[in-house]
């Protein structure tokens, strides 16, 4: 535990030196939200209905997905390529300590991003609810581990670090394009949830519904659990293939 704490401090210091990622993770979706919903600024308070919950879920899903991809997965690939990961591995002696330390720091960052975004949402909607902040944090905590695990499949790619950012952008575009596939039965529902963005939207939406409307789709639980186990299996495979060796350079 001490090792993870020491590593986490290093990751926090390193993170604070690169604030540009927050532009992509937080500033862009916040600006887009204001562009789409700025009209509510001059109107009476907006209540948190199912339709507003869905809108918020999409924004949360973007923030969660992009933060995990950029700050956890791509960051780890970059560390592998420049030799940091190999060096750290032989300092702490465990792959998991490095992954967990990085993940915990980014989970804290993610929660911070969601709090800021939700404060903007509440300001625009003139509707202040602690439940929105709590639902955001709960959603982040629930989905971030499975999403990080499925995203670890990117460790298998034998591409240069210069190419990985382009690839991640294409991947995000593809996931957004597939986010609203029709769900006509359990199988198609499971398949749609294999898209981590849909998975995040669905989980966030259910959490928001539970907090604000006291409703919850219990039929979702089994499907959600099956998909989460699948994410876990893919994650176990992806992380087991994370090697200390750079793909392009000998470090």
């Amino acid at each position, binding site marked *: 535990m*001490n090792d993870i704490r020491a*590593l986490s401090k*290093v990751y926090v*210091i390193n993170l604070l030196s690169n604030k540009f990622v927050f532009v992509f993770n937080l500033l862009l979706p916040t600006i887009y939200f204001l562009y789409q919903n700025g009209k509510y600024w001059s109107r009476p308070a907006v209540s948190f209905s199912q339709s507003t919950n869905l809108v918020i879920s999409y924004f949360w899903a973007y923030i969660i997905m992009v933060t995990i991809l950029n700050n956890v997965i791509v960051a780890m690939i970059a560390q592998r390529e*420049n030799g940091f990961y190999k*060096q750290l591995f*032989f*300092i*702490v*002696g465990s792959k998991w300590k490095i992954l967990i330390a990085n993940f915990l720091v980014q989970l804290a960052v993610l929660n911070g991003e969601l709090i800021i975004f939700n404060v903007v949402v509440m300001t625009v909607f003139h509707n202040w609810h602690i439940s929105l902040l709590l639902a955001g944090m709960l959603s982040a905590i629930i989905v971030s581990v499975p999403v990080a695990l499925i995203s670890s499949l990117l460790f298998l790619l034998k591409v240069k670090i210069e190419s990985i950012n382009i690839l991640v952008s294409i991947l995000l575009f593809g996931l957004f394009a597939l986010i609203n596939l029709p769900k006509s039965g359990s199988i198609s529902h499971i398949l749609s949830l294999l898209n981590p963005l849909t998975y995040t939207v669905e989980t966030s939406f259910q959490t928001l519904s539970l907090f604000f409307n006291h409703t919850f789709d219990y039929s979702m639980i089994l499907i959600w659990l099956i998909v989460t186990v699948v994410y876990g299996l893919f994650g176990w495979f992806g992380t087991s293939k994370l090697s200390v060796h750079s793909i392009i350079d000998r470090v």
Partner: protein
Amino acid sequence: MQIKNYSLRYADRVLAQNLEVEFSNQEINVITGANGAGKTTLLDFIAGVGPKAAKGDKINVPKQAEIAYQLQHIHFFTTLSVAQTITMYRQLGNPAIETENTTFQIIKKRVLDKIWQVEMGKLSGGERQMVLTYGQCLLEKKLYIFDEPTSGVDVDNTKIILSMIASLVQDRQKVVVMTSHNLEQMVDLPVHLIQLG
């Protein structure tokens, strides 16, 4: 600690064929050889991260978690200051080493204190190597591996780095394996030479 039947073959060349190496725990084991002789690959093999092409038997080689391995020319977290880097090593290792070992107290006072608040990325290559070697020596492991720790380092800093590495063997009875091209820098130290190629 021994390596037996170590072979390293690539498609067009054979770098090692049934090599047998016995490592000393009384001296610094220094692997030397020409560029491309496979020194780093042998270190990787010992550390358990060698390429598939490297084959051999490892006898009494500690587990990965008990190996400290300092890589060659790593720009380690350039935004961390020297103080933050050493603090990380202290938290991950055994800070008592600094207080119990006079070599480290002298190096800390004479060298590190002057650059204590400087970011790692703003240090010269030699200073960076010295800070990282200092940190590696604070770790409590069974085997310490250093890949070219004095490469590109001036004479004074080389002496400091080698004194820290020697203290691992002389004061703490650890097994140390390092690579070097500059054997003349080590004439005053207890060295077990391993020639590759």
